[in-house]
Every structure is written in structure tokens, then in C-alpha cells.
């Protein structure tokens, strides 16, 4: 059974600081997704990482993928209040379960002024 684990689950940080969210998964998947969810809202796609060593950046967020370590990171640079949300990573295990996504528990990020 595919397992996806995120840490930390809760993160409170000050504006202007840097931090990293980690996503570990138990399969050899080569496709990893990051989503953002605001309270009471649906999921917004942030990044899709397709191969080992992939790195993508959008604004203050940068995501990377290491398929050998089965690890993805979401790095936050100089956090601002608008980044407060819950961030999910999700993995597709194409070999065993096709395109269905298995999600981590989410990291609830709060950026304080």
C-alpha cells in the first residue's frame, strides 16, 4: 500500500523567514504533485514534478523531487502572510494503481506578521 507522509503537520513561522516542508513516499513513483488548500476551499495545483532531480519555482515557493530517496521538498523563501494555507503533496503510483492520487496528511502553514 502506498504511503505518503508529510512533515511537519503544523508550521508556524514569521514573515520573512525560510522553511522547508518534506514529503516522503513509499513507492517508486516518478510523478509528484503539490497542492494548496485555503480554509473552506478546494485544492489549487502548485507544481507537478515528473522526474528525478526536477525543480520548479513559482514566486516564493520552490519544489524539488528526489525519486531515489522518495522525497520531495517544498521550500518557502521569505514567507509572507498570503502563503498561509494547508499544503498537500500527492503521489501517483502508476505501476500498481494508475493515475489515482494518494495524498499526504497536509502541512498547515501559518505565517505570522
Amino acid at each position, binding site marked *: 500500500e502506498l504511503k505518503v507522509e508529510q512533515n511537519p503537520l503544523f508550521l508556524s513561522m514569521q514573515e520573512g523567514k525560510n522553511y522547508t516542508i518534506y514529503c516522503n513516499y513509499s513507492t517508486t513513483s516518478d510523478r509528484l504533485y503539490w497542492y494548496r488548500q485555503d480554509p473552506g476551499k*478546494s485544492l489549487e495545483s502548485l507544481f507537478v514534478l515528473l522526474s528525478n532531480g526536477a525543480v520548479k519555482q513559482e514566486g516564493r515557493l520552490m519544489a524539488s523531487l528526489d525519486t531515489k530517496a522518495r522525497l520531495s521538498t517544498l521550500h518557502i523563501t521569505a514567507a509572507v502572510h498570503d502563503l498561509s494555507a494547508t499544503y498537500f503533496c500527492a503521489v501517483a503510483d502508476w505501476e500498481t494503481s494508475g493515475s*489515482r492520487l494518494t495524498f499526504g496528511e497536509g502541512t498547515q502553514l501559518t505565517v505570522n506578521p
Partner: protein
Amino acid sequence: GAGVSQTPSNKVTEKGKYVELRCDPISGHTALYWYRQSLGQGPEFLIYFQGTGAADDSGLPNDRFFAVRPEGSVSTLKIQRTERGDSAVYLCASSLTGFRLAGEDTQYFGPGTRLTVL
């Protein structure tokens, strides 16, 4: 363009009743997914359609849950004899193909239907 839409946005029902939740995917997307999200958790997979057929229904919790997509576009998730444990947000997502070789094939999520079973 229009995203994934879901109706109703909220549904309150009594234990034992039947409910239908509707999903209208992005136009042209052949793959459609249903997930369920409980409070404080990540979404959990229920069922995946490729066109009109259910390609993977292994996430449906029991035979009270059923979904259809008769014309390969709109999908309806049907729950019979609802139980309090069915209360959750039901999310629908669609992607262009659902195939591995299709590149990113991002799944785009709708706003969800919040189901409350009293």
C-alpha cells in the same frame, strides 16, 4: 476557461436517505476522479472514470456508494442509506487524459460538496 464545477455546494440529509452529488468536469477532459476529504485529512480516492467507464472503483468504501458517467462528461456520485460517517467534503477532479505518457496531466479539483448526515 471554466473549471470543474460541483453541485450542490452543501447537502444536509438525514441518516438513511439517498443523495446524489454532481460533477461537471473541464470540457475535453476524459479522466474524472472522485475523492472524499474528512476534516483535517488529505483527500482519499474513491473512483476514477476514463471516458464513460469506471477504470478503478477500488476506493469506494462499500456497496452503498455508486457513481456513473453515462456520456463521458458529467458524473454523479450516488450514496444510498446514508450514515453519519459519510459526512465529509466530496471532491471531484478531472484531467486531460489520465495516462502516464501524457506529461503532467494535472488533476484539477472542483470546489467540493460538503455532505452532512444528521
